[in-house]
């Protein structure tokens, strides 16, 4: 068993480690056999002591699948709760990591493709599970974004009434919006708080996800709130965003009042980092005041 090149030995061992099923299945798999036939592979490992070569490589195999399923369970507690541990672990071990093996220095990136994987899967609940996973991925992603200074009440108070139509906002990095086809937010709430799991409804659901002082929150928005907030987060001028909202929804006096409260709520939640005042001339890009930070 001399002179197996390093790259051959490593490609063989990796193929055996990554192959689901038993160690025997893995040794006989096409992926492993492409580098070393099963008997030669086993001879590559010293046969000594209380463990056989297959048992020795089996330790690495077990650890690999345990790490992958544990890592995914941390990022996707909702999907795991829905599928149950056994079904979740099998899905990760047998299919997901085979299709999307980690190529990052960190396990924190392992779950990036899980929503897309679920949506393309043959699972009967795939659309709903993919929606749930999208929410969970947005929550995970919010944890790593940079902390930013927040827009202050004083800065907002300094805006002249006639200037409001032309202000734009700089969102914090840790804010995102999702529109999903299922009410998965209530389900995830219940999983996290360990409450009785509600039925997931098939209905269009708008969700705001944001992090504040390192803690991530998510909540459902009405279609009107969602429309206005998404326009503001995209950098549209406040006046233009209100006009676009009025085009899509009738705005009466009570809704004007609502908008005032929504906006105050969003500022209070720390969704914005800065504000820009622009001149009200035709040239919308003519910025004359810098943001707060």
């Amino acid at each position, binding site marked *: *068993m*001399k*002179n*197996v*090149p*390093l*790259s051959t*030995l*490593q*490609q063989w*061992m*990796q193929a055996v*480690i*990554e192959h689901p099923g038993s160690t025997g299945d893995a040794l006989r798999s096409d992926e492993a056999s492409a580098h070393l036939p099963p008997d030669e592979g086993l*001879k*590559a*490992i*010293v046969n*000594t*002591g*209380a*463990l056989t*070569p297959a*048992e*020795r*490589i089996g*330790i*690495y195999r*077990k*650890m*690999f699948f*345990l*790490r992958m399923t*544990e*890592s995914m369970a*941390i990022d996707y*507690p909702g999907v795991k709760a829905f599928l149950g541990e056994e079904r979740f672990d099998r899905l990760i071990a047998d299919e997901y990591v085979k299709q999307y*093996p*980690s*190529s*990052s*220095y*960190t*396990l*924190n990136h392992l779950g990036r493709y899980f929503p897309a994987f679920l949506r393309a899967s043959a699972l009967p609940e795939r659309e709903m599970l993919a929606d749930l996973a999208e929410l969970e991925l947005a*929550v*995970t992603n919010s*944890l*790593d*974004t*940079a*902390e930013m200074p927040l827009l202050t009440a004083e800065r907002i108070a300094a805006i002249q009434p006639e200037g409001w139509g032309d202000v734009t906002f700089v969102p914090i*990095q*840790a804010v995102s919006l999702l529109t999903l086809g299922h009410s998965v937010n209530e389900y995830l709430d219940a999983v*996290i708080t360990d409450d009785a799991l509600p039925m997931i409804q098939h209905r269009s659901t708008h969700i705001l996800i944001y*992090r504040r002082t*390192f*803690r*991530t929150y998510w909540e459902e928005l009405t279609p009107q709130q969602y429309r206005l907030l998404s326009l503001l987060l995209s950098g549209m001028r406040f006046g233009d965003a209100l006009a676009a909202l009025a085009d899509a929804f009738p705005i009466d006096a009570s809704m004007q009042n609502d908008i005032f409260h929504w906006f105050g709520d969003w500022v209070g939640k720390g969704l914005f980092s800065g504000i820009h005042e622009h001149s009200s001339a035709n040239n919308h890009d003519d910025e004359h005041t810098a943001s707060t930070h």
Partner: protein
Amino acid sequence: MTPNKWNIPDLGFGVGLRSVHYDHILEHRPPVDWFEVISETYLESGGRVRYVLDRVAEQYPIVLHGVSLSVGSSDPVNFGYLKLLKALADRVRSPYISDHLCWTGVNAHNVHDLLPIPYTEESLRHITQKVKQVMEFMERPLVLENVSTYAQFSSSSMSEWEFHARLMEDSQCGMLMDVNNIYVSAYNHGFDPKEFIDRIDPALVCQYHLAGHTNKGTHLLDTHNDHVIDEVWELYQYAYQRTGGRNTLLEWDEDIPDFDVVHQEALKAREYRTAEQVAPSGPRVRPSTPPVMRLTPLEKNERVNSMSHDL
């Protein structure tokens, strides 16, 4: 006492920084000599882990310990990863960086485990080249840790210690001697752990690791989930007599107890530094902090350092 080749100062008795202890450390500022942090957890995060790291770095010396360098892989050096690592090392002023003499994947995969390498002339040439590239890029010493292994390759033409010693001679890297890993591998493969220690030039040992493991009868698993056993403490003492003052760090990665328990375990090392018989300070009892879901990304990278005792 033998000075180490790079004159890295003896920082004393450190503890691995783990997310379950963040709140305790920020609130109580425990008198720990230094912290070792798992580099991968902090490379790109701008969230809470980065905030905590910056606060800790203001108060304590920090050394970066990586798990994804994969210096033993037949893949080339990943300079994208090194660029992030260098920026982090500069940010926390890590005097040197450490990782493991192992591979973690090939063909750009990462299986997130510390896999054994065949101790051959081919491996030695290849890894020597990679280590030189890493040190040149990082502009600071690279210190490689011996890992716990569960398999050895028939193609090996030398022992692990001979390989490690020759690698250090050829590439000018240093050694992070994990005494628990020597003990675990010695049990798993039937060699004398003292022979391993005897064959390493003490001037090249820059740091020690201590940790607990799990005895499965047929083999030992490097689980980092318990106190250090007496035999490993004695091995530390044996090694320490040859090197004298070296950074010593306790790792605890599974079933992690309150911070003070981990800290006290690290301070036990004082009793085994025969030249420096200093009594450890008294226990500082503090309530533990309950984990809060989704407050911070759980530090999965830390677990790459160890095996699960569920195996």
